[in-house]
């Protein structure tokens, strides 16, 4: 489908690119001959297998053949194809099943075999024949496709497999209009309406983005979802209004998902990284396009679930596909309602009609999670007491119906696409909803035109104390999106009038997220109801100046030369920026940046391991030091005192390192970076001791009188003797007793009297062998 100029694509649009069925070369001959009767000239279906495959592939790639096949379709098949084409050709199986049923192109009949057994089957189903003739091509062979991770049963109550309309046919077919499905409008008068404007939505998202961009990145889990501590820090730093009950669960996680989908946040390794360019593009788009983009983000959210919030790991993996599919069904239903105009609907009626169209799904894969809001649907009451069809229906409302209610009345209200209200006064009045103007355009595309862009209005009052009062009812999403990036708010308060504050931090974060000083000033001047206070202008200039005066440039290549002449000679032949007397700054790692015979250090890879450390703390070099090695050694070691005594780790050098702010982990890290072999354990513990890590128990060293009793029985008798106890002090190990010094002679006399022979020399075991590590060779 080629959209008309200026018109947007349907929300569920996914273009078909397939022309050839997967595994064509390995197909049995029967299906090949069957397809050949559609795609090849008469008589060619009996060709030998290899020729047949070759001819078929050629025809499938040919638009003229596709046009001929299109002309051969029955009117019903053509209508099915046009319905597929409405969505670009590739459609979720659950959505297309409902769509074709709503159009009367699929119909279910019930055959009653007994009182307890009713079989439901298709009265008519043109899909099977279209699949056999390769007008619809299965996407499920492709294992890379997300919907292959789970499967439904078959039969009329199951979603259709995901098929693609042949791309050559899709491009030549006029797409169908919206499916003729609707529900009666509500009669009651809406009270206590909850709604959010595009400006409020953009404001919240831009505030979350500004936080992220100011930090550059936040930690992510392995699966790409935000790490728990990072999410909690975000919640604390950027309070968001969760609105009145029912509240949106985990609005920060939702914001991150939406921005990830829109490309404002990317996953790099274990971090979520802000993309300032993408944010600048997104937040300056017209209101409708921003809303459309957030709606697409909601459809594809993988780690945030309607009604329950952020999930990680297995839950996210298991439920993301089914939840995305259910969101598409909801988007399809709202798309149908969007064409009916500006109307309020009762929630119960909507769900009842949706259920009636669904039938009883043979299996449901929506998550069994406790949802934050229970809409207490009348149709879900007494589900335990029901039986048969009534029981199935009540359970559908209890689970699927409640999930749809959470998505419709909470998630989509938070996105500003739906408004909710009580249709009448009092708590007993039915719940109702209607699509907002933006919602009608987003879900009703391409037939429903986007609302006109709000006129640019001066909606800010900027005060000399740096407070900004924003009248959001006069602001569009572009204005709000910009404001959220340059000003901060301590309050989670939402509403048409909000107060913000310009601070050095907020302006710094805005500039770090890609906005320039000139853009910020121009925005404030354009939207301020009065002239900007002079002190505000001065501070903005001062803050920007401070940022410009201190910068960290990473990913550069530094070339260092022994002399300025060498450096200048290099610059005569190569590009780069002179830096000081000896250096050139460049970027990348291209050939121009290679210097023959130079020491090469990769700051983001393995460092040069060219040092050796012995137990004396002496460091020997196997190659000359580079700037990094020399600078690090200068911090932690005593410089060479002579040609014979090189760099050395000493107590004094470590004290100096500690005084300079170096922590033990950094010192160990530096040594580990450059040592060819691990540091001797004695020096490793000495470094900790020098830097006073842990302040553990002191070592003890003193004179002692020891009694060694090699025989086990003798040792036991002496150690436990009450007569000898006054002479003994402690038992340092088996066979050994510590004797009170002053009783040495007396104990000797007693033991000799008892018949023991006393020797004056101690015999003991050898010390354990010395481990031969780097620098510990005992020679």
């Amino acid at each position, binding site marked *: 489908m080629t959209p008309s100029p200026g018109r947007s694509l349907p929300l569920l649009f996914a273009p078909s690119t397939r022309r050839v069925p997967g595994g064509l070369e390995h197909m049995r001959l029967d299906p090949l001959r069957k397809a050949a009767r559609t795609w090849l000239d008469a008589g060619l279906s009996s060709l030998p297998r290899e020729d047949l495959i070759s001819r078929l592939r050629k025809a499938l790639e040919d638009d003229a053949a596709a046009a001929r096949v299109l002309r051969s379709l029955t009117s019903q098949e053509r209508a099915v194809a046009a319905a597929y084409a409405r969505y670009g050709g590739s459609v979720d199986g659950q959505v297309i099943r409902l769509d074709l049923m709503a159009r009367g192109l699929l119909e279910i009949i019930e055959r009653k075999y007994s009182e307890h057994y009713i079989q439901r089957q298709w009265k008519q189903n043109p899909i099977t024949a279209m699949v056999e003739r390769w007008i619809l091509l299965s996407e499920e062979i492709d294992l890379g496709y997300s919907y292959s991770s789970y499967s439904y049963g078959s039969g009329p109550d199951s979603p259709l497999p995901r098929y693609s309309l042949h791309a050559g046919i899709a491009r030549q077919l006029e797409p169908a209009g919206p499916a003729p499905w609707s529900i009666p409008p509500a009669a009651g008068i809406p009270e206590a309406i909850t709604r959010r404007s595009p400006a409020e939505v953009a404001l919240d998202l831009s505030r979350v983005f500004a936080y992220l961009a100011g930090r550059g990145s936040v930690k992510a889990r392995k699966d790409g979802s935000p790490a728990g501590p990072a999410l909690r820090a975000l919640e604390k730093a950027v309070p968001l209004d969760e609105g009145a009950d029912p509240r949106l669960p985990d609005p920060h996680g939702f914001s991150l998902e939406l921005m990830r989908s829109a490309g404002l946040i990317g996953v790099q390794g274990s971090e979520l990284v802000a993309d300032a360019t993408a944010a600048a593009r997104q937040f300056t788009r017209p209101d409708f396009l921003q809303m459309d983009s957030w709606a697409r983000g909601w459809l594809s959210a993988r780690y945030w679930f309607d009604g329950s919030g952020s999930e990680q790991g297995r839950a996210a993996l298991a439920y993301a596909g089914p939840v995305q599919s259910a969101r598409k069904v909801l988007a399809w239903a709202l798309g149908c309602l969007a064409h009916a105009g500006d109307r309020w609907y009762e929630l119960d009626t909507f769900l009842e009609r949706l259920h009636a169209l669904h039938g009883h799904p043979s299996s449901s894969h929506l998550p069994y999670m406790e949802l934050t809001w229970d809409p207490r649907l009348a149709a879900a009451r007494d589900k335990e007491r029901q039986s048969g069809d009534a029981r199935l229906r009540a359970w559908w409302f209890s689970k699927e119906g409640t999930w749809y209610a959470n998505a419709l009345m909470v998630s989509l209200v938070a996105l500003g696409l739906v408004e909710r209200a009580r249709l009448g006064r009092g708590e007993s009045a039915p719940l109702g909803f209607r699509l907002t103007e933006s919602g009608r355009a987003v879900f009703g595309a391409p037939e429903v035109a986007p609302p006109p862009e709000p006129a640019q209005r001066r909606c800010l009052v900027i005060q000399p104390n740096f407070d900004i009062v924003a009248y959001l009812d006069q602001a569009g999403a572009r204005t709000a999106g910009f404001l959220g990036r340059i000003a901060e708010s301590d309050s989670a308060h939402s509403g048409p009038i909000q107060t913000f504050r310009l601070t050095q931090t907020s302006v*710094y974060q805005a500039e770090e997220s890609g906005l320039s000083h000139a853009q910020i000033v121009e925005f404030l001047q354009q939207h301020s109801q009065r002239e900007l206070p002079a002190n505000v202008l001065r501070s903005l200039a001062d*803050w920007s100046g401070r940022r410009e005066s*201190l910068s*960290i440039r990473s990913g550069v290549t530094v070339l*260092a*030369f022994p002399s300025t002449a060498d450096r200048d000679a290099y610059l005569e032949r190569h590009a780069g920026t002179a830096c000081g007397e000896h250096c050139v700054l460049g970027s990348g790692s291209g050939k121009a940046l290679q210097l023959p015979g130079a020491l090469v*250090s990769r*700051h983001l890879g393995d460092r040069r391991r060219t040092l050796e450390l012995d137990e004396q703390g002496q460091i020997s070099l196997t190659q000359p030091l*580079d700037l990094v090695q020399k600078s690090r050694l200068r911090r932690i070691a005593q410089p060479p005192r002579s040609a014979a005594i090189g760099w050395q780790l000493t107590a004094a050098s470590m004290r100096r390192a500690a005084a300079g*702010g170096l922590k033990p982990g950094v010192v160990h890290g530096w040594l580990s970076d450059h040592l060819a072999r691990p540091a001797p354990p004695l020096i490793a513990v000495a470094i900790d001791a020098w830097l006073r890590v842990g302040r553990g128990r002191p070592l003890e060293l003193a004179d002692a009188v020891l009694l060694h009793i090699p025989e086990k029985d003798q040792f036991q008798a002496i150690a436990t003797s009450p007569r000898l106890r006054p002479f003994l002090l402690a038992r340092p190990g088996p066979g050994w007793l510590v004797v009170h010094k002053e009783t040495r002679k007396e104990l000797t006399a007693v033991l000799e009297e008892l018949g023991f022979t006393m020797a004056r020399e101690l015999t003991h075991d050898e010390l354990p062998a010395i481990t031969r590590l780097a620098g510990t060779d005992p020679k």
Partner: protein
Amino acid sequence: MARKKALQPSASDPLNELLPLAEPTAPEVHFGAAVLEVSDPAQLLELAGDTAVRPYLLCRLAPQVALVDPGRADDLADVLRRRGHTPKILKS
């Protein structure tokens, strides 16, 4: 010659004690490096004198440019922000 002499660090220069000027003895290439640039050399003295910041800086490549300890540019940015600075972050 006079210009060169003026740039010779004096032994009593506190900045040279804290953050010496790089004096390579052989050609070197450092890939993926990070540098800290300031508009005024006095800023480097202020930063190098701060023991929370100094471990992240290795040496000066120029009077206004310091080489950042490998792999720790992001940590340096965090420390600077925590200490009230507003560094401009540039990634090549």
